[in-house]
């Protein structure tokens, strides 16, 4: 039996101290080697640098390998214990998705495989049923109810358009003789138009930054005043500190709400050249964090600032006499007197806001985006083909993608649309 290889974030939603990404299936070990270079011995955790296809560094992670059938799913498994930031997790998941033969797991699919391969005992599974129910029910509700029905309406509107296109194509096939329908040349045009519109939506900000926070990273050389700044911001009246996790590793993450914008403020290790092994790991991690930052607050020398598209140059410790004047383009800030803090927060939240869906706008989450992207691809293919039946087939694929998104099974809907719009049948 050839099963797909599946992957998913198996621990809770980031940010968290550690995020566990699990890959299961015949291609799991191959995928593990693609990302980690090599895999450790079975059941031995080892540190590896994860890299994407282009060699870009994703994270340093603990990697574990399990061989079938002695694994939780009964299949070959690789686990990546990454740093629990959203950007890191996203990057690793994206890199996995790039690998041929891998696909994101459906809800409950790991459990399902465990079951199929006899890895879960029966009483365990009975209890899991409730859990699966709760989780998926929550996902379904939250996905559709989120924007007070706005997203639902938008999706329904797309779905309706796809239905009409599908009905049109099906009618031309099943009612070859009726003069009410023909192989309508506008079908391709409308498929193209809808695909373009879906593409536009896919290019918009996703819901995840809204839910998980915009990652604002504070970086600079050691003793630049990063920690003081983070404390000052966290202590600011206008910034509400919602939770402060311990300094679990080498970074502090402070989720806070800045003028209603969710922010994940991250402190990093000081950046400098070092011979110390432990420190070097921390520095490397800090560099990765800088790269993955949504917004970067740089506290070092202007000329040493890393390139970043959303960067604020900060001139810290401006209360000190010798640092009273900030260089051109740098914002003078004092964690002691609070000078410049308001300005810094305003500029930060302005940059962060650009990453979020507009207020009141409807955003897709990753799952929804995947289905919409599938529909978009199918509609593009439908618009591009000259074979009518292929066009119909692709429109059907688009319809199925929407059905999966909304959980509706579709044939009857097509027939309703078909017979409602066209006068068919002898």
């Amino acid at each position, binding site marked *: 039996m050839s099963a797909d290889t599946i992957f998913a974030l198996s621990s809770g939603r980031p940010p968290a101290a550690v995020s566990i990404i699990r890959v299961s299936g015949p291609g799991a070990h191959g995928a593990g080697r693609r990302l980690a270079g090599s895999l450790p011995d079975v059941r031995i955790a080892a540190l590896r640098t994860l890299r994407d296809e282009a060699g870009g560094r994703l994270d340093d992670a603990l990697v574990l390998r399990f061989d079938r059938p002695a694994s939780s799913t009964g299949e070959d498994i690789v686990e990546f214990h990454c740093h629990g930031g959203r950007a890191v997790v996203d990057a690793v998941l994206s890199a996995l998705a790039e690998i041929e033969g891998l696909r994101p797991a459906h*809800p409950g699919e790991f*459990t399902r495989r465990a079951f199929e391969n006899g890895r879960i005992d029966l009483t365990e*599974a009975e209890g899991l049923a409730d859990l699966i129910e709760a989780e998926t029910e929550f996902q379904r509700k939250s996905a559709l109810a989120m924007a007070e029905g706005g997203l639902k309406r938008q999706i329904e509107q797309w779905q309706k358009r796809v239905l009409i296109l599908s009905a049109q194509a099906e009618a031309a096939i*099943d009612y070859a003789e009726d003069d009410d329908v023909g192989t309508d040349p506008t079908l391709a045009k409308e498929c193209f138009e809808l695909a373009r519109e879906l593409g536009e939506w896919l290019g918009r900000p996703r819901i995840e930054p809204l839910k998980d926070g915009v990652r604002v990273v504070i970086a600079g050389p050691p003793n630049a005043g990063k920690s003081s700044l983070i404390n000052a911001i966290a202590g600011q009246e206008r910034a509400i500190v919602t939770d402060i996790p311990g300094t679990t590793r080498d970074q502090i993450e402070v989720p806070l709400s800045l003028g209603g914008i969710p922010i994940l403020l991250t402190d990093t290790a000081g950046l400098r050249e070092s011979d110390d092994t432990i420190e070097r790991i921390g520095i490397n991690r800090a560099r990765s964090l800088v790269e993955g930052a949504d917004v970067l607050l740089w506290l070092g020398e202007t000329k040493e600032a890393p390139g970043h598209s959303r960067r604020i140059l900060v001139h810290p410790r401006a209360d000190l006499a010798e640092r009273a004047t900030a260089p051109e383009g740098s914002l003078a800030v004092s964690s002691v007197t609070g000078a410049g803090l308001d300005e810094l927060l305003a500029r930060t939240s302005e940059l962060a806001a650009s990453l979020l869906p507009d207020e009141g706008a409807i955003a897709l989450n990753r799952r929804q985006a995947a289905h919409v992207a599938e529909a978009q691809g199918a509609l593009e293919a439908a618009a591009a083909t000259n074979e009518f039946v292929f066009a119909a087939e692709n429109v059907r694929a688009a319809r199925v993608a929407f059905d999966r998104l909304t959980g509706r099974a579709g044939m009857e809907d097509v027939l309703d649309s078909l017979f409602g719009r066209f006068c068919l049948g*002898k």
Partner: protein
Amino acid sequence: MFDVLVIGAGHAGCEAAAAAARRGARVGLVTFRAKDIGQMSCNPSIGGVGKGHLVRELDVFDGLMARAADRAAIHRRMLNRSKGPAVQGPRFQADRRLYRSAMAALVAESGVEVLVAEALALRIEGGRVTGLHTCAGVLGCRALVVATGTFLDARIFVGDEVQEGGRRGERASGALAEQVRGMGLAQGRLKTGTPPRLDGRTIDWSCLEEQPSDLDHWTMSSLDEGIRVPQLACAIARTNGRTHEIIRSAFDRSPLFAGAIEGRGPRYCPSIEDKVKRFADRDSHQIFLEPEGLEDHLVYPNGVSTSLPADVQRAFLRSVEGLERVEVVRPGYAVEYEFVDPRRLRSTLETTDIAGLFLAGQINGTTGYEEAAAQGLAAGLNAAAHALALDKVQFDRRTSYIGVMIDDLTLQGVSEPYRMMTARAEYRLALRADNATTRLGMAAIEAKCVKDRRRDQIENHFERRARSTWSDTEEGKADFLYAPYLERQEREWEAVQRDARVTIPAWLEFASVPGISTEMAERLEHARPETLDQASRIRGVTPAALSALYVAASRRAA
């Protein structure tokens, strides 16, 4: 003692009886009148898009319909020629008399014993069917196929006239209907209609658009029996504003709109009054004038099925160009009838409650000869299996339209008469009318339901497929054309198969499964899916409910 008894000698009954006989069963075919065998009670055509696919599939199992159609074809058209081989639909106009005599001859050849009698009641003992009470005494049997069409509480409407009974001039069997209803199988009422029959000699053909028969000769059956019947042309007439006005002014006399008919009619075969009402902006509808036979002056005006009063029918027809002087030989009418909920059937078409009792054809809520015949095949093959302890023959969605239909019926049920359409087949590109032998040939041979000549043809076909010259054949070219899509479908099918291996025990109470809501339990209870895959295709069943069901099914199985 019969192995298999079949009640009803329509399209489903004849195929069921002959199929059971081909598997070696002693079969009795019970009918009111011997001349009902092969009767085309509605339009005189066989096949079409989707329907033609069914006939070709039936043919691979040595079914009768394709061969009878070849012997009676007076007009042939391959529909959808321009849209690619997957959706091309072979369709014939058949000479009614030739078709009936061809079918009677094929039934006679099959060794089926035709018993002219009225079926009164099923004999059921210990949860299984053991025989049939008829007006001529009791007949014992091991399995029984009910293929009685619209016999359940049928009512005929012509305007404000209402008659009890099946088709016009046919008898309805009341006692048996009462028994079936008593078993709790009947679900609701459906409606179907038929157009008036015209005297072709009173039609002015010269002013109508001619629809010629295809020039190339092709056959419905893969066994060409060499019979060449002369070909006739059909013609297309069109309704106009005046026609619609006449129809509209008689809405109050239509049993459809006056509320006398409560059954739901098929959306895809609306009556002309329905078309005029629902599509008020259309200024014209097509009428296909189809001759009923070589030596028959009757013409079937396809497209104007109606239950309006006879005088209105005549008036609106005469407003159509070419039909100004037309004589209506028989007015059109609507039939309303009760049907059985096909969700009470297994995928073999055996009832879930009574062992050995099979139902096939229009009684299951389908419409069309081809749909009926294909169910007849499935029921007949499996009734023989039941009686003689042979392997069941099951059809699946990936390899046949028969499988699509049976799966749709037994899983989703029907809310309107079910008609085959290619849109219903998700593996449409693989299910072509031209590759039925490839898809089903081996299954037919394994079912031991084909005669030597058919077996040779199937084996020969697979030998030719293995040769390098195959890619030059029409079927080979079509294989190549669809190959990329077929690979994708193959992968989808693997996922389906994984789910299909998870069987749901028949006694599982859905409401007792942890994590399944009341609403989901109800949906599942109605459909009684046999596997997880089937459950996943029930309308409205959520992924969450499926997960819970999966866990429950696996636990129970272990």
